[in-house]
């Protein structure tokens, strides 16, 4: 069986999800290619099961509406979750940012 090298992927979580997962701002995950939003979220949810349903819907796996995925100064939120992430994310030089939308309101 061919050896598949895993990559060290950096992810920055929003404040409330760090608290929920009891982790730091940035987490590092070992992921086998392809490196996509889907494989990164699969890895996050595997390591931190309490985050299931908080970033994407349990069943449809759609991104929750008030969250965004940024990397390398680009908004990747509307890309397919199966698109390859930028090389600098896949190589671990840059993090994938999961951002809670700024939505100041009455509460």
């Amino acid at each position, binding site marked *: 069986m061919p050896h598949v090298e895993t990559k060290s992927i950096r992810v920055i979580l*929003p*404040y*409330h*999800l760090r*608290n*929920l997962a009891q982790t730091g701002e940035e987490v590092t995950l070992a992921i086998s290619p392809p490196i996509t939003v889907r494989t990164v979220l699969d890895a996050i949810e595997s390591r931190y099961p*309490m985050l*299931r*349903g*908080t*970033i994407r819907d*349990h*069943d449809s796996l759609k991104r*929750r509406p*008030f*969250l965004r995925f940024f990397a390398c100064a680009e908004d990747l939120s509307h890309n397919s979750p199966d698109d390859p992430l930028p090389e600098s994310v896949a190589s671990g030089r840059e993090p994938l940012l999961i951002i*809670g*939308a700024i*939505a100041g309101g009455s*509460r």
Partner: protein
Amino acid sequence: MSKVRVLVGTHKGAFILTSDGKRDNWKVSGPHFAGWEIYHLKGSPADPNRIYVSQTSGWFGQTIQRSNDGGKSWEPVGNKFSYDGVPGTHQWYDGTPHPWGFKRVWHIEPSLVDPDQVYAGVEDAALFHSTDGGQSWSELSGLRQHDTGPHWQPGAGGMCLHTIILDPADPQRMYIAISAAGAFRSDDAGKTWKPINKGLVSNMMPNPTGEVGHCVHHIAAHPSRPGVLFMQKHWDVMRSDNAGDTWQEVSGNLPTDFGFCIDVHAHEPETLYVVPIKSDSEHFPLDGALKVFRSRTGGNEWEPLTKGLPQKDCYVNVLRDAMAVDSLDDCGVYFGTTGGQVYVSPDAGDNWSPIVRDLPAVLSVEVQTLA
């Protein structure tokens, strides 16, 4: 000596207020889950150290937290609430069919006998059940699949299942209420349900006495008389003496019969508490004076309780799950306001004082009486 633990859910976290039985010196713990909306938290009657919390957020959705040590530490448990089968539709505000979709847990009701069993009332209205301490949830879908389900409509706050009452004398019997579908009863542990809205009159409905469609705000029952129910409807305070089969109005001399919360004295099953609120849509106390009304006659005859409560310039609301009683010999009564105050009366309503004044808006108040 006995102690009380008051569990407060707010728009920005949970707070736990503790005191000895005198209830005049309080410790405040929190915010727990700071920044999240805590619709409800409630302890297990079978194990008071087991507490369940509904933690929600417009950004991150629903989480359920559980404590096994009375709120000192917490662990997230299961948060997957999937409707059974193809969910279908209910009516939207404009009368068109709208797909059922999970939004949040409004109310958590732990089993009376098993700390690992717990019910959750959710928006869009449905009842879920867990038998493993909240790790997994399954829908008791006979309720939502009742013939009338496609005709249920949301109230202004969403189509929420906000009240769950478990009958201590009959484990097969339970009651729930939905805004704005009405009240329902199951006599087979949640498998099948019947609407119990006969006697309710809601003039905002095309048929004011319809089988469903009533905006029930809350229901309370005394454990020693499980067939006797008291309801704060959108307008009207109601009672039923036959497990909801029929209702009669007991608003009596209340200055307004609109309100959200209702509760029953721990030792006097005919002593009730409500907080009349001005409506339409203003939703604050009449004349800026915050008054709890007490009936010692099971309704109809009400007296205002004002000692220690603000009697001018007070424009807060008291929401449906934000009143509770303890079971000490001198029954304590508690309520929280949208202005962030939690009030206690250690003498059944005669005298009130604030435990805290400046919390975020209070969504729910529950009390545990501890040995």
